[in-house]
């Protein structure tokens, strides 16, 4: 029983983890709390659903949804991020939330506000080990997520492109003075984080066989929480955070009850932040040199 719940928690955590990494790319690198990401997550799931309903095969539908999310993200970059440069870091929050509302309402107009059933791709393909039920689809998505994250982490820390990205993260203007082509690098990052979020949305739809125009909100907030628990800007922190949040959620439901799940999950987040303001693996900001 407990073993099953831990498996359930890890599977849930895998979804949070991808969203958290998408947020990490946006805020850790671009210093942009991109609230359109939950919307792009939703676009991933919802559009994959819509295209399959229109008769497309799954892989094609997924590719279409990813492409749409990438395109939407480029619009976010153009209209929410680019004009806000040099302002307070909170400001882009407004228009990125505007994008979230927009995407949700567009999907709502197209497909209705109902939760819809996403067709089962691998019907009832479950690994049964003793009493343990592990969904193959979930296992595949966990592996896929971890692989992607590992690649990203290597890319950012060890390549010249990664250095350029970190330069933009620290100071856009300086990056420009150093001849970094921001007008290409930044949109690329937006596309990358959109692809992660949308992929998470597709995996979510496949795993839980449901989509809805509002599916991004709950997961989005948990994703931000996961990123913060792990420590902002650290990709492996986001992974750890995602798993911690997933486990905390499932275990508190099964051990105490769903009415305390918000108290325990967010209480844990609060506690972690108070004890370690920089997150689990984040480095404490040292006092700046004058």
């Amino acid at each position, binding site marked *: *029983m407990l073993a*099953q*719940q831990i498996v*359930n928690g890890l*599977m*849930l955590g895998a979804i949070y983890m991808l969203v958290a990494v998408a947020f990490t790319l946006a805020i850790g690198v671009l210093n942009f709390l991109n609230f359109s990401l939950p919307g792009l997550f939703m676009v991933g799931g919802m559009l994959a659903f819509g295209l399959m309903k229109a008769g497309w095969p799954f892989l094609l539908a997924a590719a279409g949804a990813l492409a749409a999310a990438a395109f939407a993200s480029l619009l976010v970059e153009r209209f929410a991020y680019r004009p806000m440069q040099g302002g307070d870091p909170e400001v882009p929050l407004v228009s990125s939330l505007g994008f979230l509302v927009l995407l949700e309402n567009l999907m*709502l107009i197209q*497909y*209705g*506000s*109902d*939760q*819809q*059933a996403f*067709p*089962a791709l691998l019907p*009832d393909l*479950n690994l049964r080990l003793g009493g343990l*039920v592990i*969904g193959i689809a979930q296992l595949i998505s966990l592996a896929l997520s971890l692989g992607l994250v590992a690649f990203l982490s290597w890319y950012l820390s060890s390549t010249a492109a990664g250095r350029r990205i970190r330069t933009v993260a620290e100071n856009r203007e300086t990056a420009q003075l150093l001849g970094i082509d921001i007008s290409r690098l930044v949109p690329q990052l937006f596309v990358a984080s959109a692809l992660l979020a949308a992929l998470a949305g597709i995996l*979510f739809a496949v795993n*839980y*066989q*449901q989509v*809805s125009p509002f*599916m991004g*909100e*709950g997961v989005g907030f948990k994703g931000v929480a996961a990123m913060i628990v792990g420590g902002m800007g650290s990709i492996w922190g986001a992974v750890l955070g995602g798993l911690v949040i997933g486990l905390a959620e*499932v275990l508190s*439901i*099964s051990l105490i*009850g*769903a*009415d305390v*799940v*918000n108290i325990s999950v967010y209480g844990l987040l609060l506690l972690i932040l108070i004890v370690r303001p920089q997150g689990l693996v984040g480095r404490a900001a040292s006092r700046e040199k004058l």
Partner: protein
Amino acid sequence: EEDLVLGYMMAKSGPYVSLANTNEVAVDLAVEEINKKGGINGRKIKVVKFDTAGDPKQATTALRTFAQDAGALAIIGPFSSSEVRTTFPVGEREGIAQMSMASSAPGLTKGFTYGFRNTTDEGKVIDQVLAAVKDKKLPMASGAAAYATDDVVSKSIGTVVVPKMFEKYAIPSKGAVDFQLAAFDLSPQVAQLKQMAPDIVGLGSPPEGAVNIAKELKRQGVSTRLIGGTTIADPELPRRMDGAGETLTIGTTFFPEVNDRTKGFAAEFAKRTKAAGLARTEPNQMDASVYDIVYLYAAAMEKAGVTGDKAKLAAERAAIRDQVAKLKDYPALEGSISFADGDAVKPVYVLEVKGGKWTLLDTRMPN
């Protein structure tokens, strides 16, 4: 010649949109039918509409608009329990009747003389569902409850109604699991239910929760009968469960297959919703309820001899209220309706999912 103005609070946007956006078609249909037959007391009914988005604050604004600006005689709606909680006190102060089509939380009309609901208390509904299950000699040797904790109605079903009914029908309870409305991952809860292995699970939840739990039950290979009240009564539910949820049994206050009148209504409704480009073309219980609300008000206005004269507005509003409260065995679309303590008393249709479709198991009158 004045029209008889009714205010109508719609929830055409916001969280209830998929349940509520077809209501307008039903209201328009009822008004058209009545006006075609010559209206009430020789006057036509006119409906003024306001989209509240299911938000209590906007519902209050709607109520003030109807009462103070539009000269409404009575109000159709509001939709949700939260809206009812804020608009009933204002309606009481303004002296104008309201009748909700969807709010089914316990005790909402208590203490209000102008507040009505054309809905049935979930306790009464589930009582009839269990009675039907017992009558049909279906297995019910042990039970458990599953409910959403952050929704008033669902929670009271899970924590109050189901335990009480299990006691009434002598069903030993194996326990309860709960979840959040927004939860998509019900694997922990179902893992617990699997251990309990009950014959029936009393479900307090909106349709989404029912879909999710039915699917997860299927995934984890658990077979049990889910039973529930009107909160799950979505005509589309069997399709949305996509093969899961066989034997799910619920009570509702409307079923299109009952008689010619309901079939006729469903057909006309389908025509109009299709023409309006709406996603759902099958009427749900709220559509039927709101359709009947127009008729109930019409009956009350007729009895009260309402003229729509602006000078007599306050008196006529009070008269409508008094007549609604006194309605007995009114032959409505949903069946025979009477009012007791502000709430409608009407038949309960017990439905079961069979072969991926709703089928009528039994029709019962709450006692």
